């Protein structure tokens, strides 16, 4: 790099503008690739954008903290977006009211399977106690999962990583899995993804079908509540 270019880089790298722009560009490119590929679930836009950004950050030697100073403006919108779920929820209120029983049954079944299967498989494969309790709340939205993990002696930051990884996994496998199971009810498809893969699953569901997205959003909210009660109860039983 010439000295002039280096000066520009030093200046830009320190402002939120650079990494905010990079975040939007990475997502936009990822989204276009996803669209071009006929919304192929494996080419998940979150996964592609994260991979591109991690590459750019490591090549340029930028610490995550510096990146987040710019990206925080996008991150902040998660809160208002979750509040915005109220709009489709209200629009579909009749369908939702008619689906209370299937939702309750699917919520309990999904929540229990999410926690117990993760604990059982990881324990069989020899994961440490710290890792187990960071993994247990993997299917709920990050702030709740971090709170649960912390209370039980897991690592909140590891829990957040596992939550994101679970979300991306769920968004990638849901469509082929549900097609293979021949489940065509958009409510059931959305609800299953929302219970297993919280917000990232909900984001995928909204891109596929609005009714599925709405049910995914409901499942995400309800599972946050149930898992917060369930995981400490399982921990108390096991200890």
């Amino acid at each position: 790099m010439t000295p002039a270019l280096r000066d520009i880089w030093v200046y830009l790298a320190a402002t939120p503008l650079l990494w905010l722009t990079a975040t939007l560009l990475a997502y936009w490119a990822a989204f276009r690739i996803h669209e071009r590929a006929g919304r192929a679930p494996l080419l998940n836009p979150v996964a592609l954008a994260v991979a591109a950004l991690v590459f750019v950050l490591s090549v340029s030697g930028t610490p995550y903290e510096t990146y987040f100073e710019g990206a925080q403006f996008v991150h902040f919108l998660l809160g208002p977006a979750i509040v915005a779920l109220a709009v489709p929820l209200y629009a579909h209120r009749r369908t939702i009211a008619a689906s209370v029983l299937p939702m309750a049954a699917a919520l309990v079944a999904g929540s229990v399977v999410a926690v117990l299967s993760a604990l059982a498989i990881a324990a069989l494969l020899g994961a440490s106690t710290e890792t187990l309790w960071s993994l247990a709340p993997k299917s709920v939205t990050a702030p709740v999962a971090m709170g649960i993990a912390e209370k039980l002696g897991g690592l909140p930051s590891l829990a957040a990583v596992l939550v994101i990884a679970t979300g991306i996994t769920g968004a990638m496998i849901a469509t082929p899995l549900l097609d293979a199971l021949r489940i065509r009810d958009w409510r059931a498809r959305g609800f299953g993804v929302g219970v297993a893969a919280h917000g990232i699953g909900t984001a995928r569901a909204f891109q596929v079908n609005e009714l599925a997205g709405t049910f995914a959003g409901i499942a995400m909210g309800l599972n946050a509540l149930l898992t917060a009660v369930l995981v400490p109860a399982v921990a108390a039983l096991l200890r």
Partner: protein
Amino acid sequence: MIGALATLLLFQLAGETIVRLTGAPVPGPVVGMALLVAALAVRRGPGEILPGVANGLLQHLALLFVPAGTGVMVHAARLGEEAVAVIVALVVSTALTIAVAASVFVLVARATDRGEGTERGA
């Protein structure tokens, strides 16, 4: 549009306040969402502008997870030797959860209603 954004932020703020006051194990925005549904029910609908802004945010909900997802880079090393156990548990458990929850939903729905989701969504 500003009014719609202010509405979303106001309900988030109310949700955060309630969560702080009660110590409930839910994120503030989820409580804000529930409050906004209640407000929409009282007002009998969201008006003209709010749906546009809400759908705009929700259509690109995936974008909003990119900054947190990039944080994976910082903590990926922490997995170390346990990476295999964690990845297997995570993938299998996520697949099982989706399959079980969606199947239970379908079974109970078949017993209790007329399969509305398929008719409307197809």
